[in-house]
């Protein structure tokens, strides 16, 4: 849950950050204020959309939702109980207000299966998913940026054509394998074949290795390809010739001058990768029978436990929003031009 509480902070905290960098008494923190305002607007809209969509799941159920949930064998009395439980006997706007009001109080409803608050179900499962997603995200960036930059630098101006082709083929091939297939293959080879890692569960830290690898290798290669392409184009920019004219050491030239300029476009795309990585988590957990939100929501959908479905979708949606916000804040730090402009991701 720390992510959620920390996540609420970045927008208001961001101006302070910019202030520290800009120097005392400077007017330069204005862009951060504008950024916070603009971003807050988008965030509110996205949240509203998310809440509306999760709310609509139940009213949109075909036929009589209570009957569908109870199953065809249920007694009329059981159906009536569920109808009252879901508030299906009240008008739609009133239910929406109640739903939003419940959310505001942290009440996500009660699970049909477990008979416990959905908030508890989510709170038990969320840490497992965060344990997978956060290291995977870190690994994607930690692999992709150095690898892509190294290849971009080594192949600049048409040098080392063979490395260029080899990288393109290998990274492209790995990026093309969906995580659940990669995960399955990793289980068969590394867990069952070589017995290096546990094939599933979440008992030991070692059982995190394969799911994290399966989640991050593909996106890492995809991002590395982007980093490589961006590196090549940044290295051709005139300001890099200016930096060369200052005869800077290679490390400073590439890290201080090239890297921040790559990051703008790379991070923009990374935002997309990371949200899709969250989606991948849902699937990958099922490969490894990993007790996170992903396995839970699939079971909930199969057994029509709608409050749990709603709760998890809300939760994953909020995670996606936080990831996007984080990407935008980092973008603003490395390239302040993105703060003010109507910069669209993707």
């Amino acid at each position, binding site marked *: 849950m720390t992510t959620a509480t920390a996540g609420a902070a970045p927008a208001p905290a961001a101006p302070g950050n910019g202030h520290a960098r800009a120097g005392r008494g400077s007017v330069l923190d204005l862009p951060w204020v504008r950024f916070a305002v603009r971003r807050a607007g988008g965030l509110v809209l996205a949240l509203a959309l998310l809440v509306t969509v999760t709310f609509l799941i139940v009213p949109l159920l075909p036929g009589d939702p209570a009957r569908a949930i109870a199953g065809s064998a249920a007694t009329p009395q059981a159906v009536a109980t569920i109808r009252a439980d879901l508030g299906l006997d009240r008008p739609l706007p009133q239910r929406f207000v109640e739903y939003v009001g419940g959310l505001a109080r942290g009440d996500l409803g009660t699970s049909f299966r477990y008979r416990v608050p959905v908030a508890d179900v989510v709170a038990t499962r969320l840490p497992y998913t965060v344990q997978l997603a956060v290291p995977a995200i870190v690994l994607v960036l930690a692999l992709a940026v150095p690898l892509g930059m190294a290849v971009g630098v080594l192949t600049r*101006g048409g040098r080392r054509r063979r490395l260029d082709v080899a990288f393109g083929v290998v990274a492209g091939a790995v990026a093309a394998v969906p995580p659940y297939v990669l995960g399955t293959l990793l289980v068969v080879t590394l867990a069952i074949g070589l017995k290096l890692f546990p094939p599933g569960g979440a008992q030991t830290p070692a059982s995190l290795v394969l799911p994290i690898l399966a989640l991050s290798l593909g996106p890492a290669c995809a991002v590395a390809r982007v980093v490589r392409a961006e590196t090549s184009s940044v290295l051709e920019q005139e300001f890099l010739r200016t930096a060369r004219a200052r005869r800077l050491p290679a490390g400073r030239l590439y890290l201080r001058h090239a890297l921040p300029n790559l990051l703008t476009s790379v991070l923009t795309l990374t935002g997309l*990768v990371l*949200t899709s990585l*969250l989606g991948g988590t849902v699937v990958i957990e099922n490969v490894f029978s990993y007790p996170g939100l992903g396995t839970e929501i699939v079971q909930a959908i199969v057994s029509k436990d709608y409050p749990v479905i709603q709760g998890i979708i809300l939760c994953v949606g909020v995670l996606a929003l936080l990831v996007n916000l984080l990407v935008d804040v980092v973008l603003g730090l490395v390239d302040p031009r993105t703060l003010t402009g109507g910069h669209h991701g993707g």
Partner: protein
Amino acid sequence: MAVDTALLAEAALRGPAQRRAWRRSPSLLAGGAVLLLLVVVGVVAPLVLSGRAETLTGDANLAPGAGNWLGTDPFGRDILARALVATRLTLLMAAGATALSFVAGVALGAGALLAPPRVRQVLLRVFDAAVAFPSLVLALVVAAVLGAGAGSAVVAIGLAGIPGFARLTYNLAQGVATRDFVTTAHLLGVPGPRVLTRHVLPNVSGPLLVLLTSSFALSLLEISSLSFVGLGVQSPQYDWGRLLNEALPSIYTAPWLVLAPSLMLVLAGAGAMLAGDGVARLVDPRQVHGAPAAAPAPAARRPPDAVVLGEDDDAADDAVLVVDGLVVEAGGRRLVDDVSFRVRPGEVVGLVGESGSGKSTIAMAVAGLLADGLVADARTLRLRDLDLLGRPPARRLATELGIVFQDPSATFNPALRLGSQLTEVLRVHLRRPRAVARDAVVAALTEIKVTEPRRRLHQHPHELSGGMLQRASIAAALTTGPALLVADEPTTALDVTVQAEVLRQLRRLQREHGTAVLFISHDIGVVGALCDTVLVLRDGRVIDRTTGAALRAGEANHPWTAALLAARPGTRQDRATA
């Protein structure tokens, strides 16, 4: 995959397809071949292999062998046959989902374009918000509503793909809609929807087709993932995801069961990746790997020895810069041919010529900043006692050779504050503490009349005007007290009035500091006003040597110089020295 989609779409936006690139895109051919093969399998396999794929036999759980290459499942069915037969359902579902995303997405995107501004803003905000969510999570919402099943998986993935198409359609169409021919159509009174269908949509069809291809692959993999977790295709039907799902419980006893569906999924993914790469290269020739780039340039041949040096040999020893017999070649083509000159202390030497005359190439050869593929050689190329052809120490080069480039909006690093850029040489090479370096730059900025110099250091380049930036780069170049300042068309990118001011400051500082300057310009008026000695270049050769004074007087002893002088707009000369 999301990255690839975005990349493809972005690449597609950059430029029109070039037909010749087809031949240069083996990956498109390979990817296309793989996808075509899958389609053929999807058509043929169910006709031929249904028996093997669906008949229950006693040969349960056989490991891969001669009779069944990839083994059999717990019901004795040939798993390769099952994977091949499943191709049809997998492809059909992916096609259905893609069609749904495409049609609805294009309609919504186009609708947003035609909608009144307020509705459009709302729609765009909604697209943006929707794109921020993982499409698989949107798909789970739909799956939750419709329940598990093949049909609901198609609808789920199809709906989840709509925002992407809608936003791309809008972005593309909006780009085209502001172009002249569309505006013209509007002015001619062609109604909006007609403009859209007749003029706008055909012009964005290329990028949309690119997205369609990659979106097909993405749908395929996502539908398979729904089937894989048990929310898609239900038994007895089977697609690749379902086969993988069924293989999972017996992964210990029969690990080979995952092979066939995994292979098919990898094949489809890789095929789509190759095809996508190919298409992206097709629409963006810059990405082509076989692009000409740098042919390993043969070392430039040294010009014959013992040719006359500069005009006054006696001054050779105290010259700041000696260029003797400079040759620059690119892949065998000679861009600069046997150019010799020297720059004495405090002297301003101008190189003037049309674009392509080799003047900037000379400047970059002197600075050691030639582009990839260009190779320089000379009998002598030295800055004071530094041999510029060797590997001169970075610190001396950085501090003794100042450079001012042409376009200030492109030569400053957009991501870094001015302070860190302008003080960099002082800090990195002269090891000045940060505060000392900043003070030095502030003093230099003040000297060149940049207003509010301290505040400028906190700003990013985009917050300053071009003239301001160019003065800042002149000031920074002079902070190390360089022996030579190379100014490569320093005012070309600026407005005329700004030009005059920058030149006036450059001339003033040059006089006060006594810095030698190598000044490159295509403008013979500017060169005449600023320079002591002037070399006129044409096709990489020095064709005339004259003086600023002579040019100011309108005298030219070479016909080409005279022609350049005559070509100046008007007779009014910019007296930058005034």
